[in-house]
């Protein structure tokens, strides 16, 4: 993976608005490399997000989600200081995760 994930969780009232930018090639398996060989399919299949350890999002993706995926989601009942963790698992079993603290909108 090129760069680590980036995440921001901002509180709007009692809803945490979370934006995540992941680093992943999300290969469809249809692209050819410089030598004309098909680059094998390689994509994030599962993304989970938790708020203070409780699962709030469980997403399944296909290879049609864009490269270096962006994900935006919202969580009700969040408070400033709450911990959000976003983790992904790809079709090769590789994983990554990142934490963020919910901060009030400035």
């Amino acid at each position, binding site marked *: 993976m090129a760069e680590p994930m980036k995440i921001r969780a901002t509180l709007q009232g009692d809803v945490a608005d979370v934006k995540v930018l992941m680093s992943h090639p999300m290969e469809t398996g249809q692209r050819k490399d410089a030598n004309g060989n098909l680059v094998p399919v390689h994509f994030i*299949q599962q993304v*989970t997000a938790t708020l203070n350890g*409780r699962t709030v999002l469980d997403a399944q993706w*296909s290879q049609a989600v864009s490269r270096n995926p962006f994900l935006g*989601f919202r969580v009700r009942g969040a408070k400033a200081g709450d911990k959000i963790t976003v983790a992904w698992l790809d079709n090769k079993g590789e994983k990554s995760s990142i934490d963020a603290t919910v901060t009030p909108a400035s």
Partner: protein
Amino acid sequence: MNRIRRTLLRSASALVAVAAGIIRPAFALAAEWNKAAFESKAVGDALRAIGATDAQPSKDVSIKAPDIAENGAVVPVEVTSGIANTQAIAIVADKNPFPLVANFEFGAGGDGYASTRIKLGQTSNVRALVKTADGKYFYAAKEVKVTIGGCGG
């Protein structure tokens, strides 16, 4: 002798349990990746695989996506559901080689909202399917024109 055998059997069965995947870390509680749905090549099959064949159109489901996507490899799609008890949002691109693009399931507190960027192979209807707690599906669709296809090749 019996004690040794019992201890051995106990650790062996624990090992088997782990190996069998009964004890799994992290993604153990995540929903299984719906292979049948994600590998469906026709919209109808993909919808059937997620149980959305009888989806009703709803004005409370809104899709924000460009009318024309210059780059089919990165098409922003933002879905907001105003329907109570939204449990999941699925994004389907009718003309993609594999129409089901993503499925977002919400746990307690998860709001009916999802935003991401997807690849579109060609001009296509993009559908947002919203599933409510009682298993019903509602949808909205928007046509996105694509000038340069984004699936590869």
